């Protein structure tokens, strides 16, 4: 029992890194995703093309490859990043690409009657988007966003390949030392716990946003 508590304590140290990466990615990729989604439906063609190219590249190549590129590739160009910085930047940009498309689809699912009603009341484009359209898309994009939120928990394990001691790598270090699979079981339970919390948060959010439906 002592052994399990001991190992769990060590793995939790790794989980802290995972948690930090998770939060930073969640916050900034959602913000970047909203901005790019608005850009993608704007009337500026060049902007739409650039954002389209961005989502095409980042959704179309493996996250692991992107991570390698940021960590091992950028130093060639003279940009050297700490593992955590490299991981955070890669994850934010990668997840924002998915969020861009999710939010864009959500925004486009709002009928044109809402835009017209806002317009004849005198709201400008900005007010219409931020007060009328985007709040309505929140409810609609919650299910796909919830999927991404769970994926992110698991994708975060990829950072062990650039030398970060996250939850999974901490578990593996114990395994290498003690030759027992217990740390992997503990790691699996921790991942499940984190995922369950996230699923529940999203369930609550969906309940809250469905009051008007």
């Amino acid at each position: 029992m002592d052994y399990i508590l001991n190992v769990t304590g060590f793995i939790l140290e790794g989980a802290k890194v995972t948690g930090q990466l998770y939060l930073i990615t969640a916050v900034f990729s959602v913000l970047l995703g909203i901005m790019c989604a608005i850009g993608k439906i704007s009337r500026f063609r060049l902007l739409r093309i650039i954002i389209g190219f961005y989502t095409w590249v980042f959704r179309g190549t493996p996250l692991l490859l992107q991570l390698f590129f940021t960590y091992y590739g950028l130093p060639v160009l003279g940009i050297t990043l700490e593992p955590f910085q490299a991981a955070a930047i890669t994850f934010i940009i990668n997840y924002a690409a998915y969020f861009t498309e999710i939010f864009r689809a959500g925004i486009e699912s709002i009928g044109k009657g809402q835009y017209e009603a806002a317009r004849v009341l005198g709201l400008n484009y900005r007010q219409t988007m931020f007060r009328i359209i985007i709040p309505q898309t929140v409810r609609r994009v919650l299910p796909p966003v919830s999927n991404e939120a769970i994926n992110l928990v698991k994708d975060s394990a990829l950072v062990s390949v650039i030398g970060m001691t996250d939850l999974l790598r901490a578990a593996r270090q114990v395994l290498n030392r003690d030759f027992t699979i217990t740390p992997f079981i503990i790691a699996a339970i921790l991942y499940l716990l984190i995922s369950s919390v996230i699923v529940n948060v999203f369930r609550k959010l969906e309940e809250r946003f469905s009051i008007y439906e």
Partner: protein
Amino acid sequence: MYMLEAINIKKNFNKLEVLKGVSLQVRQGEVISIIGPSGSGKSTFLRCLIGLEAIDDGFVKIKGKEVNTYRDGCTEMGMVFQQFNLFPHKTVLENIIEAPLVVKKMEKEGAIEIAEELLEKVGLLDKRDVYPSRLSGGQQQRVAIARALAMQPDIMLFDEPTSSLDPELVGEVLEVIKDLALEKITMLVVTHEMGFAREVSDRVVFMDEGEVLADTTPEEIFLQPEHARIKAFLDKVF
């Protein structure tokens, strides 16, 4: 001086001529019904007036001043849609105070006061804090009318306000519009409710194939229509 003037409005959708030069003069306090067969351009005409569609030719004047409502928007006019278009994520009250707060930068208390008066007027004060999805179509449309009135427009446009309502709900919405007519609010009402047009309007405009065929009193149009196409239309709807 006219409250609203439309002069030779033309509108094409691709090759299709929807409005072939429509002119209309509206005096302060006048209630005008626009009737005619589907596809005659009635709704498009309203949408051009308020700037939801760009016009290809002609111009719009409000109180004698030429305006480009498509480019600049138009706060002198309010509009009520066939599909209500309430904001589903906002309560009845929030729907009504949204534009006064955001566009007119009104104080919240003042906006709520106006909203409650309007809700009283349309008979829905008890629904103040309810979301639109909990309301019947007729109630939603009455809220939509209150929402448009909250901006205190000089002219109200109604685009088939009862066409998507169940028959038993049409009456309550028409009652509200009739009350507004009594208050001498300037109104343009595109409608298929001939009884309403006849009873409430000062003038009835008959449109067909993008043109105004008649612009006259309700008596004249309903009792002695001089145009064969108007006669045919009225025979069909009555």
